[in-house]
């Protein structure tokens, strides 16, 4: 018992400082939550909890995609456009038969999984190109994915404009699709169930498969991975492929969640996802990051946004707080991994 208390409380000044710095971001976030709860005690309720989980679900699935790329010391600026791409593809293929301005007026009702597969296939194709460019030409992922962000917006917009009614938001979703995404099972929102399933699968992939372990190795030290016989190029491309799969799923869910899709859907989502990863300890220096980290990061961000809106804080102030939070999180993270001299 005494050893436990020793461990918990008997620290030198430096150790306390270290502990404080390592957990600073969590402390700040709890402070914000505390302010919210004091101002508005009704924040602590089942309904709010449910909403936060539901709102976090798609974000989490997307964050897992970019998290793998961040573990490879990369980043993905094109995430938002992938979401838009998958959303528009899914929505255009899943409109009500009786909806007046259908994207494909003559198309029969498709099984729900077909548009999902189409969205995933499209995202995998372009994300694999990202991975290939990064691995083959050693282009910094910031630039490679920035190129993809712009290119994909063009492709997505052309497709968006090519529908029968012309370029207008694709609404009137198939009832089954809406039900699948926004419904609930045994009182649990389906979105939360999907996010949970994805989390479990990602955890298994990251921790229990050769691919996952290779991902950490390539991210931590590509040279070491190479001389140990890991195919660095293949691993890199596969990480982007996995990201593509997750973007496809995320976009498919997002279209139904917000009820319509257009070529602007998903704009800026990459920044939320990257910020959540970083706050969750998935380090830009590579080789480090956990599933629990991504979950923490996404939940924290959603709680803060929701909480600040809940107490009626002006949205512009929210931007300021979130922006500062990101920089603080990153600088604390960097401090952890910086070589101390």
């Amino acid at each position, binding site marked *: 018992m005494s050893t436990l208390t020793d461990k918990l409380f008997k620290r030198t000044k430096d150790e306390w400082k270290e502990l404080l710095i390592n957990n600073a971001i969590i402390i700040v976030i709890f402070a914000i939550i505390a302010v919210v709860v004091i101002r508005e005690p009704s924040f602590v309720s089942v309904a709010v909890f449910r909403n936060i989980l539901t709102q976090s679900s798609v974000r989490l699935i997307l964050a897992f995609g970019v998290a793998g790329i961040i573990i490879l010391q990369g980043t993905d600026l094109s995430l938002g456009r992938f979401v838009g791409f998958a959303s528009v593809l899914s929505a255009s293929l899943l409109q009500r038969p009786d909806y007046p301005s259908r994207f494909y007026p003559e198309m029969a009702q498709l099984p729900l999984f077909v548009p999902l597969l189409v969205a995933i296939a499209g995202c995998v194709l372009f994300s694999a190109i990202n991975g290939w460019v990064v691995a083959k030409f050693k282009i910094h992922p910031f630039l490679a994915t920035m190129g993809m962000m712009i290119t994909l917006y063009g492709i997505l917009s052309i497709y968006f404009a090519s529908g029968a009614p012309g370029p207008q938001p694709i609404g009137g979703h198939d009832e089954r699709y809406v039900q699948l995404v926004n419904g609930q099972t045994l009182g649990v929102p389906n979105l939360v169930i999907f996010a949970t399933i994805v989390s479990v699968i990602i955890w298994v992939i990251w921790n229990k498969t*050769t691919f996952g372990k290779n991902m950490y190795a390539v991210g931590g030290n590509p040279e070491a991975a190479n001389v*140990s*016989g890991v*195919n660095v190029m293949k691993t890199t491309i596969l990480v982007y492929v996995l990201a593509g799969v997750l973007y496809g799923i995320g976009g498919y869910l997002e279209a139904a969640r917000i009820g319509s899709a257009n070529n602007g859907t998903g704009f800026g989502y990459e920044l939320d996802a990257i910020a959540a990863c970083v706050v969750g300890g998935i380090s830009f220096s590579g080789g480090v990051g956990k599933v629990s980290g991504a979950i923490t990061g996404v939940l924290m961000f959603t709680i803060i946004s929701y909480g600040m809106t809940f107490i009626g804080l002006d949205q512009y102030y929210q931007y300021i707080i979130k922006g500062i939070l990101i920089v603080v999180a990153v600088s604390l993270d960097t401090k952890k991994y910086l070589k101390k*001299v």
Partner: protein
Amino acid sequence: MQEEYLLKIKDVNKSFSGVQVLKNVCLNVRPGTVHSLMGENGAGKSTLMKCLFGIYRQDSGQFFLGGEEFNFQDPKHALENGVSMVHQELNQVVQRTIIDNIWLGRYPVKKVFVDEKKMYKDTKALFDRLDIHLDPRTRLDKLSVSQRQMVEIAKAVSYDAKIIVLDEPTSSLTDHEVKMLFDIIARLKKEGVGIVYISHKMEEIFEISDEVTVLRDGTYIGTENIKDLTMEKIVNMMVGRDLEDRFPEKTNVPGDVHMEVKNLSTKYKPLVKDVSFELRKGEILGVAGLVGAGRTEMVEALFGARTKTSGEIFIDGKKIDNGDPHKAINNRFALLTEERRETGIYPVADITFNSTIANVQAYKNKAGFLTDHKMKEDTDQQIKNMRIKTPGRKEQIRALSGGNQQKVIIGRWLLTNPDILLLDEPTRGIDVGAKFEIYQLIIDLANSGKSVIMVSSEMPELLGVTNRIMVMSNGYVSGIVNTEETTQTEIFNLAAKYLNNTKEAEV
């Protein structure tokens, strides 16, 4: 018929951006023997091994393994065909555990999942066999450099390879660990494994080698049975001349105490612990020690580039404050960093920029702008004084040879007119001829009254150039010896003095 040689390397050539680093190099390794590959830094040993292992592609030349020609496309290919390697630069994923590192590239899989239990069991068995006492689940960044090196050796052994290349495997091992490694090597020999052993430590070479092949400046010099060799003969083959001729005459005469350092300690690892010493005017003080002994950290702390927890510096009896490099420069200190390419040169900038950048303040005119002509003058002067081989000062520094780059950087610091020069591995990666010139330069500087601290991993260089040698071990000063009176053995023993225990524990 049994092949005489397990591994045959024939006439390998390799150039990097026009510079030929391997010229018709050969190497033949018999099964069940240790074949040492020797040569100075930059002789091409590691390059040759990297060609063998599929990291580099040779321009021409052949490799035969058990009589069959092969050409590995990548390290994976080499590993699968029975060649494994301990890399000099410790290529490891430090964020991951020992298990993850050892089985990286060949994780055992059960259905689709990595078999953690098997990996743990196999690692345990491997460590038991090699007498390594580490928890396989430890993250590598929690280990010391020597422990990491042992993990890397265990990994190389675990491939059950026919050929194992050990590229400076003992650079930071303790005596005990070196003994363990040699036991492992003896066992591997019995199993018929061929071992290529690269090391700078002569004692090791004589202890474990069967044959020695020497390279010099990328050329094959010869292969001899160890029985026919002496230390002098090897050095001769490596250097191409006798040891005495490698160093200029030491003409400097140390004067009064110029700098006094008291109880210098640093905050972050690798630690410098309670270092005190004196430096005389016009003296060259060598600093010896193993990798990780804190030598670089010590000079960085002196220069104000590392966080100190204690320590006082006195110049001519007056206390000074080197809180940061800027203050150190004002106190007329200069630091030549160890990693020239990483922290010394601005590769794409020209020689003028590289020589004047540390002293840019001095070139401001009244309006505060920089005056080009003065910079050009000084640069031309440096090129002449230091005999820098270059078409002119407008050349990008990366186009110069290592030795000439080093001269530019030494020149850069001389322009700041320092009194105390801190030189960290000043001849690393420089060819033999250029080394001589750098030595001459260092001695000339000492002669002109400057005090020099020279950190080096090359024993002959320390013995050949310095007046006294301070030996560091695990962050402590384990002894300061007179160069004239010491021996390599004494220095090695001092360097290992505190490896396994702290100074406090010994008292």
